[in-house]
């Protein structure tokens, strides 16, 4: 338990109440990754061979090379990057002013707007999937990056409004008011004084949107049909054949797909955890 463990627990008790359970949970949480990485480093023959091997007999990076030959994986990577960064930039640009209004003004309808943003964010994706598909199809936008940016904005804009409102609220008004006394307009004071202070929080929100768009699957698989717009996760799914799956390629591709999301995530961990308690972050 937290805090004052006045009496020293014996090593045995500590082992059973702490070391063992923590190790077990960590092993459970990390094992799938370890297994994915180990598989990706085995040869195709070894993966499906008898006798079974836990560790690769011959360590090889062949799968990582082949994934770029078998599939236009670099193209998918670029597509994912284009979609995710556009969604992040557009989402931030549209929602930052809304978040400013919600955090700094009291006005009629404020609560109703906050609540509708929160509610929208929780709607089932499949509710929007069908009409958006029909709309995007009739606009002739299927199989474009833009169609995905549009689809992701449905969730990312309400989300970033909600998350940034929380962040901006925690920044004191004093600075802004001082700038206004010094002759800045209200908006000028916000842009010049508050925004720079809020920059880390904005970056965190942007990166979260990026990750969300990077890992999203069901819209991506419905809206894209060719290599010009297919994202990484959809590309991974194309490796699944009717009867067989090439697990060496799939695990190598999985590692390549997961790494950017994990790296970006480590950058914004702290802010994200803060935003979590505001109840805005999708699990």
């Amino acid at each position: 338990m937290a805090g004052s463990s006045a009496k020293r627990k014996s090593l045995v008790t500590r082992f059973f109440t702490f070391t063992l359970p923590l190790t077990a949970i960590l092993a459970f949480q990390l094992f799938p990754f370890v297994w994915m990485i180990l598989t990706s480093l085995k040869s195709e023959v070894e993966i499906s061979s008898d006798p079974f091997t836990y560790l690769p007999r011959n360590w090889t990076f062949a799968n990582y090379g082949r994934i770029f030959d078998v599939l236009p994986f670099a193209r998918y990577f670029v597509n994912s990057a284009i979609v995710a960064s556009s969604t992040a930039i557009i989402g931030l640009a549209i929602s930052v002013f809304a978040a400013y209004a919600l955090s700094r003004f009291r006005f009629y309808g404020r609560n109703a707007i906050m609540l509708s943003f929160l509610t929208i964010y929780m709607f089932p994706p499949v509710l929007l999937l069908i009409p958006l598909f029909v709309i995007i199809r009739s606009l002739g936008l299927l199989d474009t990056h833009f169609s995905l940016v549009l689809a992701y904005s449905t969730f990312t804009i309400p989300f970033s409004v909600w998350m940034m409102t929380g962040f901006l609220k925690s920044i004191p008004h004093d600075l802004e008011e001082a700038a206004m006394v010094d002759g800045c307009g209200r908006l000028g004071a916000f842009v010049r004084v508050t925004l720079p202070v809020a920059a880390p929080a904005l970056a965190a929100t942007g990166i979260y949107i990026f990750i969300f768009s990077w890992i999203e699957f069901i819209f991506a698989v419905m809206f894209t049909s060719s290599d010009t717009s297919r994202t990484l996760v959809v590309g991974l799914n194309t490796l699944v054949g009717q009867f067989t799956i090439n697990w060496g390629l799939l695990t190598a591709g999985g590692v390549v797909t997961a790494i950017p999301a994990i790296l970006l995530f480590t950058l914004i961990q702290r802010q994200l955890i803060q935003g979590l308690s505001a109840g805005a972050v999708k699990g």
Partner: protein
Amino acid sequence: MSATSSARVEQGRNRRDRFWSAMRYRYTPYLLLLPAVLVTLAIVFYPIVRSLWISLHYYVLTRLRFVEFIGLENYRTVLSDRVFWTSLRHSVIYVGFTVSAQFVFGLITALLLNQKFWGRGFVRAIILVPWVTPGVLTGFMWRWIYDGNFGVLNQALIDLGILSSSIPWLAQSSTALGGVIIATIWQGIPFFAIMLLAALQAVPLELYEAADIDGASTWQKFLRITLPLIYPTVLITLLLRMIWVSNYVDIIYVMTAGGPGHSSLTLPVYTFMTARSGLDYGYAATLSVYLTLCLLVVIALYIWMLRRSEAR
């Protein structure tokens, strides 16, 4: 110009300025909100209305020449659709087991991480990784672990002498749903752990010290101090997770696509497959409306709880 009239002009200007600044103050927030609200109306509200409209039609993508208004026909069909009721039951089981196990293991993890030990920061960071892993990848990793021919789970159980021959975990209807549930539990433990850890760290240490003086046991301290204080966070997190997990499609779709038979089909997966494979958009729209109606109850409860805890 006389002194008095210039003073009057000055006064008038002041009043006008004040009027405009009051107007500005009043309307600025609406102006600032306009882009976000307009975009949301266009890409969320309009599609929802469109969806309701589509659900009133016979609308199959391969038979667009035969699109026809059929009123509530789709809604009636759903109610007598066996697969709908099966998938709804699976959804309840899936969400119930997943969220409660995520909670229990998340709480244990949070309690462990709340203790001081070497490398705590590192462990806390690494434990969150499953949570930013793409759902598709989560599905694939677990599908590979469960694999009936070369899966490590079967091999390990055989090597340990627990099994005598491989079990096709995801390809037999008795274990498919359970297999999917375990993968989803795995994915969601970190979220609970971190949320609950934040709540645990907010519990004032003095309370434990006072309890120590009174000679309370660890278990008593947990029941009487920790649990009541983290209770609001627990409830809110539970509801939030219920909402997200109820909407999951990708993990199940990738692992089993709802099969074999319909043994691991949940309502959102059924909806997705009706559109994606069945191309029946009218019926899929109707299913998604039913799903939303079920969820609205939980969403309403969540928002009510959230506001109550904010007011406190």
